[in-house]
């Protein structure tokens, strides 16, 4: 999946109707076209994000109601070709394994219902099983048993994002018991700030993206009860700016990706109605290229697959007609997480 931006430019709507529509078919063709752009340098410079990119593209297609728009067999073959002997996945073939590409790989395999194939054909499989367990062991080994945090890889970069990534993939594989959940929860608790938000580490500035990862990890751990929901909801709802979009921190510009990080966080604490959903939907729609497809961070900028998926996911949270309902914790279609995890409250 290419992470090349453009060619579309957001806000490219020649005739703007009173009621702006979501350009579903344009977005589907845009995503499908991405992998054909190998003649552009940016395709190669973003290689370290390719697995994440495939997850973003595939999730977009699922939310758009076109889950089969990418060939399933090739998708599985690509993902499995990126697996290392350790069980972890690299961003592309030949890349070292990393937690972030591993969680994307697991999410992709879950979406195309291929966990059985991972178990029988992945690294570490013997006699038709064992592949899933090896992935679980790889992730579990990244947890620091003293602090509860996860490293992104064996070289030790730590971040609250990685706790979420670890919990996300392990829970989808039904292997959360392999790690020390309460210890990680304590670490997240120590990242709570005086303003009600959460940062990347204890004492670090509150940031909507980090808040999302903390809340999603706590939800998976069944510990969302430890969040001061009123105080956090106040901070999160303050992220909405006059134009309707959301920003990541006070006094920063709005950006479509925060439609997801903020709105999903508000959803997880039951406060999505504290912001103006109509205004947010209008803002997201104004950032799409209705002719060539794709969504950008803001109107006037080039579209890319990252902002496309988080714009669509934000609209889905708002209940936009024609989109599959999204799971606010996993950023995957709800019907898929329900298939795997059962119905959660």
């Amino acid at each position, binding site marked *: 999946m290419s992470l090349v931006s453009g060619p579309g430019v957001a806000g490219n709507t020649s005739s703007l109707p009173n009621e702006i529509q979501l350009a579903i078919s344009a977005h589907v063709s845009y995503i499908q076209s991405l992998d054909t752009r*190998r*003649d*552009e*340098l940016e*395709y*190669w*410079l*973003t*290689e*370290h994000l390719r697995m994440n990119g495939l997850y973003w593209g595939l999730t977009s297609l699922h939310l758009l109601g076109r889950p089969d728009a990418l060939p399933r067999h090739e998708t599985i073959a690509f993902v499995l*070709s990126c697996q290392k002997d350790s069980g972890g996945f690299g961003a*592309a*073939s*030949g*890349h*070292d394994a*990393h937690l972030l590409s591993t969680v994307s790989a697991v999410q992709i395999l879950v979406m195309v219902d291929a966990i059985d194939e991972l178990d029988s054909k992945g690294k570490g499989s013997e006699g038709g099983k064992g592949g899933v367990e090896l992935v679980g062991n790889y992730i579990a080994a990244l947890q620091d048993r003293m602090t509860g945090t996860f490293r992104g890889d064996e*070289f030790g*970069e730590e971040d609250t994002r990685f706790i979420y990534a670890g919990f996300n993939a392990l829970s989808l594989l039904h292997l959360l018991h392999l790690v020390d959940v309460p210890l990680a929860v304590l670490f997240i*608790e*120590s990242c*709570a*700030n*005086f*303003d*009600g938000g959460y*940062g*990347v*580490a*204890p*004492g*670090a*500035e*509150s*940031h909507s993206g980090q808040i999302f990862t903390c809340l999603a990890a706590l939800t998976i751990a069944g510990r969302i009860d430890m969040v*001061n929901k009123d105080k956090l*909801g*106040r901070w999160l*709802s*303050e992220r*909405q700016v*006059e134009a*309707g979009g959301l920003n990541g*921190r*006070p*006094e*920063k510009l709005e950006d479509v990706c925060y439609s997801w990080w903020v709105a999903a966080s508000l959803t997880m604490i039951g*406060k999505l*109605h*504290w*912001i*103006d959903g109509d*205004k947010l939907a209008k803002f997201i729609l104004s950032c799409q290229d209705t002719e060539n497809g794709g969504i950008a961070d803001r109107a006037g900028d080039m579209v890319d697959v990252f902002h496309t998926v988080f714009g669509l996911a934000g609209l889905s949270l708002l209940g936009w007609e024609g989109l599959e309902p999204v799971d606010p914790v996993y950023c995957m279609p709800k019907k898929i997480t329900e298939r795997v995890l059962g119905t959660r409250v």
Partner: protein
Amino acid sequence: MGKYEGDPAWDDVVPIPQDDGEGALAQIAYADEYAEAMGYLRAIVAAKEHSSRVLDLTVEIISMNPAHYTVWLYRASTIFALDHPIQQEIEWVNEVALDNEKNYQIWHHRQLLIDHLYPSISSDPVALQKLANSEIAFLTLMFNSDSKNYHVWSYRQYLVRKLNLFNASEIKSIEALLKVDVRNNSAWSHRFFIVFSNPEYATPGSAATAYDPGIPDALLDCEIEFSKAAIFEAPQNQSPWNYLRGVLRKGGRPLATQECFASEFAKIESEEEVKSSHALDFLADLWNEEGETEKADKALKLLGDKYDPIRKNYWEWRRKALKAA
């Protein structure tokens, strides 16, 4: 012929080509160079070679694609294996960081360098001070172009902890940033961290959201005055309002101690005299704490109707919560 292919220093290396492309790279000259360099890197990594030519090769690749994570890691391991001078590496990293503000691999790399250097100078106060000075000077340069860069701030907190920089000069440098932009939430957040995590008096493990009896009264007074001065400068700036609330909480002081001050910016008797929605919000909480729910309700209604209608549902919820209590 590629740059490395024709270089005698690389004669012994057979590059390992990328295997998921189909020759598309050949169309762009620049991409050609990148592909060639990556081919040599893959071969070097496979052979676990750590040598000075690896340092040259990684400089070249990073100059073309600084976001490539593995390249940085391999460079760091080579530097440590060769005992390459850390100071020299930091100077090079400075240049790369200034040219690539959004990149975060650089900051992780820098952290690895400092972690590696630290044990060798940890008992030398002069060397530690020198390192702190040069690091802070460089971060100041970074903040000149983006004073809210999250990666740089994260690194700064790492540095403060590592070199124990909970001191007056750190506070001073934050004040300089707030002088330029009083709305810089990152600087406010860092100030809170410096003031309330100082191991000299802060209770170990005290949460940022909790009352800490260890904080000296004079310090609380000073922080309250600091946030108030900033609010006078820009009343509709949420950062110092949040900061003020945070300080009061740390000191276990009620909001009511600031009623006079907050009323300067919002009077519910005359709607025209509201200079700050944050002041109204503050007063609503304060009055609620003091049991004056009618006044609190009026402030919240004003917020939902007039001063912050985009969040009407939130203010209505607050009104309902008042009545339920």
